[in-house]
């Protein structure tokens, strides 16, 4: 009691000083954000409003307020914009469907066997140690015309003789799912690892079927994990430009928003269009994510 009593006045007196220290501690972070987030972002916005130099060569633009750039890119690339979000949604749902049982098994069932748990977590993370590009290239080989996967599918008549896998939306979505599965599994695992199993026992004691225990207890409790997992997969997938590119698993038919931005920025050197698309991609993701978080009721994550 005495300690508390002596402490109280001191902290009250020290308040302004403390907040100054807090500000000082925050300063590096603020400078970092200002330099590496606000500055490039504002530069992106100004670039997206640039107008071409009259009679200028390729890649020559001047500062302007060309809001029409946004309308132009929406018209021009609607197909790829829609495709990006469709692919991202499907791949995220698939990743969730694959990851949940894995995370549940590692986090809940394997709790009594720490060695097994560690081993399985390693298996999930191990692909991280190999470059993303190399892994995608390996899949390109595996889906090739004469690969055992293609031959197996052809022999079992799932794939017609003159059909192929590479460059199709199915393979691209597969690649996206595969590349981002660890980002889904890990947050789910950290969440399910803390799941109180006595709640599950209570459920069965109250004569709930395993399925209703899952939907009424386990699932709602794991929502924060699902939310962070889906955000960590959906956002990078929507902007991914490697998997769907012509050099990897895709073809012109599977071009996503990332590929459009790359092409505009590096090939045509249409910087305003590329920037307008980037700004829109960011805005669309922010809107989608905030709606999503509101609906899943996990605002406290933010």
């Amino acid at each position, binding site marked *: 009691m005495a300690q508390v009593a002596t402490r109280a006045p001191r902290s009250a007196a020290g308040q302004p000083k403390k907040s100054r220290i807090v500000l000082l501690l925050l300063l590096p972070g603020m400078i970092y954000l*200002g330099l590496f987030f*606000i*500055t490039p972002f*504002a*530069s992106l916005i*100004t*670039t997206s409003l*640039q107008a071409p*130099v009259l*009679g*200028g*060569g*390729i*890649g*020559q*633009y*001047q*500062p302007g307020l060309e809001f029409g750039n946004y309308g132009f890119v929406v018209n*021009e*690339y609607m*197909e*790829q914009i829609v495709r990006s979000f469709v692919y991202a949604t499907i791949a995220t749902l698939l990743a969730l469907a694959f990851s949940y049982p894995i995370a549940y098994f590692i986090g809940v069932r394997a709790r009594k066997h720490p060695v097994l748990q560690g081993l399985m977590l390693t298996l999930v993370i191990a692909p991280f140690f190999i470059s993303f590009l190399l892994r995608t290239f390996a899949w*390109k*080989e595996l889906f*090739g*015309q*004469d*690969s055992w996967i293609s031959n197996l599918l052809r022999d079992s008549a799932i794939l017609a003789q*003159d*059909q*192929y896998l*590479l*460059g199709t939306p199915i393979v691209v979505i597969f690649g996206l799912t595969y590349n981002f599965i660890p980002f889904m599994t890990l947050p789910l695992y950290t969440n399910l690892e803390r799941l109180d199993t006595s709640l599950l026992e209570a459920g069965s004691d109250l004569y709930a079927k395993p399925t209703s225990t899952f939907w009424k207890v386990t699932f709602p409790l794991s929502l924060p994990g699902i939310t962070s997992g889906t955000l960590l997969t959906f956002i990078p997938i929507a902007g991914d430009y490697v998997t769907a590119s*012509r*050099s990897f698993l895709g*073809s*012109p*038919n*599977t*071009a996503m928003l990332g*590929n*459009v931005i790359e*092409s*505009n*920025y*590096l*090939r*045509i*050197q*249409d*910087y305003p269009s590329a920037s307008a698309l980037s700004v829109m991609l960011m805005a669309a993701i922010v809107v989608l994510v905030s709606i999503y978080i509101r609906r899943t009721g996990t605002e406290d994550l933010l």
Partner: protein
Amino acid sequence: MKDPNSLPKDPMMAELVKMARRQQLTRRTALAGAAGTVTALGLAACAPASEPGGTASEAPTAAVDVSDTEKVLTWDNWTEYMDLSDDETSRPTLERFEVQSGIKVEYLETYLDNDEYFAIVKDQLALGQDIGVDVICPTEWMAARYVSNGYAQKLDAANIPNKANLAPAYLGASYDPNRDFTMPYQGILGGIAYNKQLYKELTGKDSPETVEDLWADELNGRVVVLSEMRDTVGVIALSEGIDISSESSFNEDAYMNIIDRVEGLYADGKIRNIEGNEYTKGFRNGDYVAGIVWSGDVVQMNFSKRTKDMFGFFLPESGGTISSDVFTVPIGATHKKNVEQLINYYYDPVNAAELAKWVNYITPVAGAYEEAVKLDPALAENNLIFPSADFLTRTHAFRALNSQEEQTFSTAWQRILLGA
């Protein structure tokens, strides 16, 4: 004791300081949080716009050459574009140059893509800065952009006596008719390659003969074309009787017709994919049976153990494309004279023959063929490395595009690549 009005040495900083002075920024406004950021952005936004549009007044000036005191040079080249010893640990011709000239060469292989490289260095070049590299080998159409923007240094012919060995076919490029700024390193042929065994299996014929043969129904989904617009559009346009070197025959309408044709071929599944250098992978593992590709890659695939002599290459009767990668000295490079010695060295027919023997592209050096006959007679007879005069009459160069055309042509091409 510094004059407060003097400018920093670094040109980028100098430019920023000048702009700041012009706008009479006080320290207070510069530090006023958001306002300061916006001003900085204004400066950043100005940078690309101030890029010279070929106007002489704005063009950067060449750097001071320090070759006489610094016997070094940095060369950034495409990958697999230099001869290697059998154990692949040294580069024989390059090492001999170092010994003979006393110039130490730092040889990099980070020039992977014309567009990407230009996007990385263009802002520095616009300010006349040294990009840390003394010589690069962009493809002609990109070199044209360096030259017309004033981003390339003029070469001193007096330091390159072997320039006399340049094959006459390489003179007369519209952006540099006398090769004052650039010198060809290797010539590249665009034509048709096919997998001998698979082509026979699918069509019953030994080899395709025309460009039209690529669009046969039996080959549906097994044909690839290059993402390099000038080669793919060039070969197809030639097959439709268009002269791709002539401005009147190959005008915008003709170009757009070819674009429509390629789009249709892709939509019908005749063209399976449009790829850059990675297409060799698809050829090696049997995804592609035929396609419009570069000759040098075919020679190399045929040399490698796994795919020994699996592929054929030919120039269709209607014609193939020819282009070259050219030595270019960026405007801020400080070892131009050393580079001129390097160019001179590779224009010695003996060295050119040794290089051509390894890289499998066409050497632009006259007399290299005679040297190659001495080195390896079988190789010298390879039309893809030392093309006969008859073979060369079937090659055509894609005409130069003005910047307006470059914009519209490449935008149309990129739309196909994005499936639009």
